[in-house]
C-alpha cells in the first residue's frame, strides 16, 4: 500500500484566495493511499521544503504530490527536495492548482472542487510512478566544428584551449570565411585581415586542432557524447605534407584568367591556386574544371617544377571517420543576389534593379574587396565596368531584407552598420566623392554603433535619404537611381557612377541538407533553429549539437564571436564530466511483446530505435526486437502511441499512469 503525502501550497494568497486550501488538504487526506496531507503558505520556501522533507522521513512517505503552481515552475525544486529526503525524484508529482485553477476561476466553490479533482488525479498518477534511475551516457571528449569562418575558428580555439581535441572541417581550400574577405570592420575600422589572420595561424598551429580544409561532412551517426562523423576530404591534387607553400606552381600555371571567387570575381587566379595570399593552410589546390592537365591530359607543368613533388594528379577523395562527443555548427551565410531566380522559387530577384546585369551595380562584399588593401584594385575604389573612380556613389540598404514581396521578411541586421562603414571608407579614399544612402530605418543598436553611424553622416558627410529605390537603369555611363525621400515627400533621382546594394544575409546553400545529416531543425529560410529563442540560444533541440554564427541567423562579428564562445562553453560543460547524466524520460522496449514491426522506428524523429537480435547461448537467433538507445531518445512517446501492442513504453508517461488519471475523473 502506498503512503502518499500531499502538500497543498497557499502561494501566499495566490492560491488560497480562490481555493479553500484547508478543505483541499482535508478532502484529499481521505483518499485511498494518502497517508498525510497538509497545507502551507509557501511550499517552495526553505521552511516549506523543510516541512516536506520532514514529512517524507517521519511519515515514511512512499510518494508525494505537491499541489502548487505549474510543474514548469517548481517541479525541479520539489523533486530535488524529495531526493534530498531520500525519495526518488520521480516519485514526486506536481498538481497545478494555480495557473490551471486559482488564477483562472473566480468562484471559490468551483475552484476548490476543481483543485480537489486535480490533486486526486495526481494522487492516482503518482501511485503508478516508478523509481527511475538517472541515465548516464559515456562522453567522447573530442569536438567537431563545421565551418572555418570566424565562428568556427573561435569555437575551435576556445575548446582546444580548454584542453580538448577539436576536428575542424572547412569546405573551402582555406579557413577564414567571409571575415577574411572584409576590408575594415565596424565600429573601430580596424583591418579585418590584421585581426583575422593571427587567429587562422593559431588554428593551424594548435596541437589540439585537427584541421581538414577542402572537406565536407558526409555522414553523421550516433548521439550526444558518441557521434561518428564521416568526413569527405576532397582531392586537392596537392599533397599537403609535401607542399612547402613556395608558390612556384601558381606562378608557372599557364591558365591565368579564372575569376577569383574570393575577390567576388573581380580578380583573376591560375588553375592551381590558394584563394588569397594569407590562406591557411598555404597549400594550393588544383581547380580540376579549368586545369589543362585534367581537361586534355597535356601540360603537367606544375608537377614538373614542384621541387618536393607534392603535385599529385591521381589523388582521390578520401573518407575519414572521426569519433566526437559534440558538434558545433558554424556554416555561415551567403549573400542574396538580385539575379533572376528560378521559376517557382519563393525568393525573388530584383528586375527593377536590372537582375544583376548592370556591371556597376555591385553588392556589399564586392565593395569590401574593392576597398581592401589586398583586393584586386589594391584598395582603390574603381568601377568594375571601366576602372574609373566613381564620384557619385549610391548605397541602397534592405535589398532583399525586410522585403516580403521578394520572399524574405527578416532584417539582415548588419547592413546598416556596414553601409555606414562603406560611406566612410569611400570618403577616405575618394575625397571629392559624394555618397548617398537610401534606407528604411537605421538599426544601429550596440556598443559604439549609433555613434559610428552618426559619424558617417556628420563627419564623413554621407547623405542619408529615408526611402526605397524603385528603379535603377543604365543611362550612358551613369546609373539613374529613382527613389523617394519619404521624410520630405519628394521623388529623388540621382545619376550615380556606382551603386552598392546591401543585400540580405541568407543561410548557405545546402544548409538544409547538412541539417538533415545532423538531424537538426531549421526554419523556412533554412537558418538553423536553436532549442529556445531566449534561454537556449546556442543549443540545437538535438542534444550535443550547438550553433555558432550566422548559420543560426544574421549577426555581426562581435555577436558571432560571442555565440561561438558560448557554444564552446556548452561543449566544455558537456566535457566536464566523464559521463553524461540525463533525465530518464525515455522509451523502453518490452522485448517479450515486441514483434519487430518497427512502427516505432518508422515514427521516431530522433532515429533512436535500432534493431536488436536476441540470441540463445548457442548463438541461435531467437527473435529480432526493437531497441531504443536511451542516449538518443528525445522522450516524445510517439513510438508508444504508434506501437500496436504497446511493447514500447515511455518512462514517466506510461499507459498505467495516464489511464490512472483518466479513471480518477
Amino acid at each position, binding site marked *: 500500500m502506498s503512503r502518499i503525502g500531499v502538500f497543498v501550497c497557499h502561494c501566499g494568497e495566490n492560491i488560497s484566495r480562490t481555493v479553500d486550501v484547508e478543505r483541499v488538504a482535508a478532502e484529499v487526506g481521505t483518499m485511498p493511499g494518502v497517508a498525510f496531507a497538509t497545507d502551507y503558505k509557501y511550499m517552495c520556501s526553505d521552511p516549506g521544503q523543510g516541512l516536506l522533507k520532514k514529512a517524507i522521513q517521519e511519515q515514511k512517505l512512499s510518494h508525494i504530490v505537491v499541489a502548487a503552481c505549474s510543474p514548469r515552475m517548481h517541479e525541479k525544486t520539489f523533486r530535488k527536495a524529495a531526493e534530498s529526503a531520500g525519495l526518488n525524484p520521480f516519485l514526486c508529482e506536481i498538481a497545478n492548482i494555480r495557473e490551471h485553477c486559482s488564477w483562472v476561476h473566480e468562484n471559490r466553490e468551483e475552484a476548490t472542487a476543481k483543485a480537489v479533482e486535480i490533486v486526486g488525479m495526481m494522487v492516482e498518477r503518482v501511485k503508478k510512478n516508478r523509481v527511475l534511475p538517472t541515465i548516464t551516457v559515456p562522453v567522447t571528449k573530442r569536438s567537431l566544428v563545421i565551418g572555418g569562418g570566424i565562428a568556427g575558428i573561435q569555437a575551435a580555439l576556445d575548446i582546444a584551449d580548454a584542453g580538448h581535441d577539436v576536428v575542424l572541417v572547412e569546405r573551402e581550400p582555406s579557413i577564414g570565411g567571409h571575415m577574411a574577405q572584409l576590408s575594415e570592420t565596424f565600429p573601430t575600422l580596424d583591418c579585418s585581415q590584421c585581426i583575422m589572420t593571427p587567429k587562422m595561424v593559431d588554428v593551424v598551429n594548435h596541437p589540439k586542432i585537427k584541421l581538414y580544409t577542402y572537406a565536407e561532412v558526409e555522414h553523421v551517426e550516433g548521439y550526444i557524447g558518441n557521434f561518428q562523423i564521416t568526413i569527405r576530404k576532397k582531392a586537392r591534387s596537392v599533397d599537403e605534407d609535401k607542399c612547402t607553400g613556395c608558390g612556384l606552381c601558381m606562378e608557372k600555371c599557364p591558365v591565368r584568367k579564372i575569376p577569383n571567387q574570393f575577390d567576388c570575381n573581380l580578380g583573376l587566379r591560375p588553375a592551381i591556386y590558394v584563394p588569397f595570399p594569407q590562406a591557411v593552410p598555404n597549400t594550393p589546390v588544383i581547380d580540376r574544371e579549368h586545369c589543362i592537365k585534367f581537361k586534355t591530359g597535356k601540360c603537367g607543368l606544375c608537377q614538373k617544377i614542384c621541387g618536393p613533388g607534392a603535385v599529385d594528379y591521381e589523388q582521390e577523395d578520401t573518407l575519414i571517420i572521426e569519433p566526437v562527443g559534440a558538434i558545433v555548427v558554424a556554416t555561415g551565410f551567403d549573400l542574396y543576389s538580385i539575379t533572376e531566380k528560378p521559376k517557382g522559387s519563393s525568393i525573388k530577384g530584383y*528586375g*527593377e534593379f536590372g*537582375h544583376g546585369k548592370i556591371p556597376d551595380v555591385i553588392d556589399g562584399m564586392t565593395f569590401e574587396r574593392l576597398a581592401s588593401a589586398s583586393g584586386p584594385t589594391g584598395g582603390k575604389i574603381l568601377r568594375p565596368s571601366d576602372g574609373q573612380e566613381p564620384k557619385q556613389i549610391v548605397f541602397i540598404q534592405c535589398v532583399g531584407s525586410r522585403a516580403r*514581396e521578394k520572399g524574405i521578411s527578416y532584417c539582415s541586421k548588419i547592413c546598416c552598420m556596414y553601409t555606414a562603414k562603406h560611406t566612410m571608407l569611400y570618403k577616405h579614399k575618394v575625397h571629392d566623392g559624394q555618397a548617398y544612402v537610401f534606407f528604411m530605418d537605421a538599426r544601429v543598436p550596440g556598443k559604439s554603433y549609433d555613434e559610428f553611424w552618426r559619424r558617417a553622416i556628420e563627419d564623413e558627410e554621407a547623405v542619408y535619404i529615408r526611402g526605397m529605390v*524603385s*528603379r535603377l*537603369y543604365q*543611362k550612358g555611363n551613369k546609373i539613374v537611381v*529613382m527613389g523617394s525621400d519619404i521624410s520630405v515627400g519628394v521623388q529623388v533621382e540621382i545619376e550615380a557612377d556606382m551603386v552598392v546594394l546591401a543585400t540580405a544575409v541568407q543561410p548557405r546553400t545546402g544548409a538544409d541538407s547538412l541539417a538533415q545529416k545532423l538531424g537538426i531543425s531549421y526554419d523556412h529560410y533554412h537558418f538553423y533553429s536553436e532549442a529556445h529563442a531566449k534561454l537556449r540560444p546556442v543549443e540545437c533541440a538535438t542534444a550535443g549539437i550547438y550553433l555558432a554564427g550566422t548559420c543560426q541567423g544574421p549577426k555581426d562579428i562581435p555577436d558571432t564571436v560571442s555565440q561561438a564562445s558560448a557554444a564552446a562553453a556548452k561543449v566544455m560543460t558537456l566535457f566536464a564530466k566523464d559521463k553524461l547524466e540525463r533525465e530518464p524520460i525515455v522509451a523502453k522496449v518490452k522485448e517479450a511483446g515486441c514483434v519487430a514491426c518497427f512502427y516505432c522506428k518508422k515514427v521516431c524523429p530522433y532515429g533512436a530505435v535500432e534493431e536488436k537480435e536476441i540470441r540463445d547461448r548457442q548463438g541461435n537467433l531467437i527473435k529480432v526486437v526493437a531497441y531504443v538507445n536511451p542516449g538518443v531518445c528525445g522522450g516524445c512517446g510517439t513510438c508508444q502511441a504508434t506501437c500496436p501492442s504497446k511493447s514500447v513504453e515511455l518512462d514517466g508517461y506510461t499507459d498505467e499512469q495516464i489511464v490512472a488519471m483518466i479513471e480518477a475523473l
Partner: protein
Amino acid sequence: MSTLKYSYYPGCSLHASAGEYDLSTRELFKELDIALVEVPDWFCCGATPAHNVDELLSLSLCAKNLELAEQVEGDLAVACAACFSRLKFTQHTLGENETKRTQVEKALDAKVRLDGNVKHLLDILARDLGLDKLAGVVKTPLKGLKVACYYGCLLTRPPGVPNLDCVEAPTIMEDLLAAVGAETVSWTHRLECCGANFTLSRPGVVLQLTNAILESAKAAGADCIMVACPLCHGNLDIRQQEIEGVYKADYKLPVFYITQLVGMACGLTPERLGLEALIVDPKTLLKEKGLL
C-alpha cells in the same frame, strides 16, 4: 473558331475620352470570335480618387459591379488598368478582411461575390486565347514597328493583388506583340507612374513624370508606345504636345492601345480601330512602315 465568352466592363473612360479603346476592343473581339456582353447597368469603379476619400465607398462600388457582372456568363473582361486594379483590390481586400466584407455587405444589402474571375484584356488575349492562336490569325504582321510597351504602375502592382504577371519585370505585353510580329524595345520606364491621379489637380507633376516616360521611350529607339490603360493614354497622347512645348522636346510618338495594334495585325481597318481619334497622328509612321 473559339468559344470564349466574357462579361465586359468597359468603365467610364471607354465611354468617353477613350472611345477608341472601346471601339477597337469590341471590333477586335468580334474578329477573334470572342463573345463580349456588356455588364448591364454597370457604373463607375471609383477609379483613382474614390479610395483616397472613402475606402468603404470604393469597395462598395466595385463589389456592386462584381455582383452585376455575375448576371452575365463568363469571366469579367476589363480594359482599363485602373478599373482592373480597383476590382482586383476589392476582391483581395474583402477576401482577406472579414470586417470590411461585413461592412460592404451591409451597405449593399447583399452578399458579396468574390469567386468570379476578373481578367484584363491582356490576359484574355495572351493566355485565354493564347499567343499561338493569335499568331495564327495575324494577316498583316507589324513588321518593323518598334514599340515601347508601357505597363504603367497599376497593371502588375502591388504584389499579390492583380497577379497579372511578374510585378517588376513583366513580359506579357512584349509577348503579345511578338506574336503579332512587332518589335519591342528594352527601355527603363515601362513601369513608372504617369501621374494619372494628378491629371487635373497637379498637372505640373504629370508633365514631369510623363516627360520622363516619353524621353526614355524615345531614347530606346521606339517608334510608338503601346498602353493598356485609358488614363496613361490620356497623359501620354493628349498631353504630348504640351510636354514637347514645356520641355523643348520633339517626340512625335503615337500612343496605341493594345487592341489597336493587335487589331491592325489582324487586318482591321483604321476606322474599326478608331485610329483617327488619336491626338498624335500615327498615319505618317504607319505609312512609313507600310502598314497603312
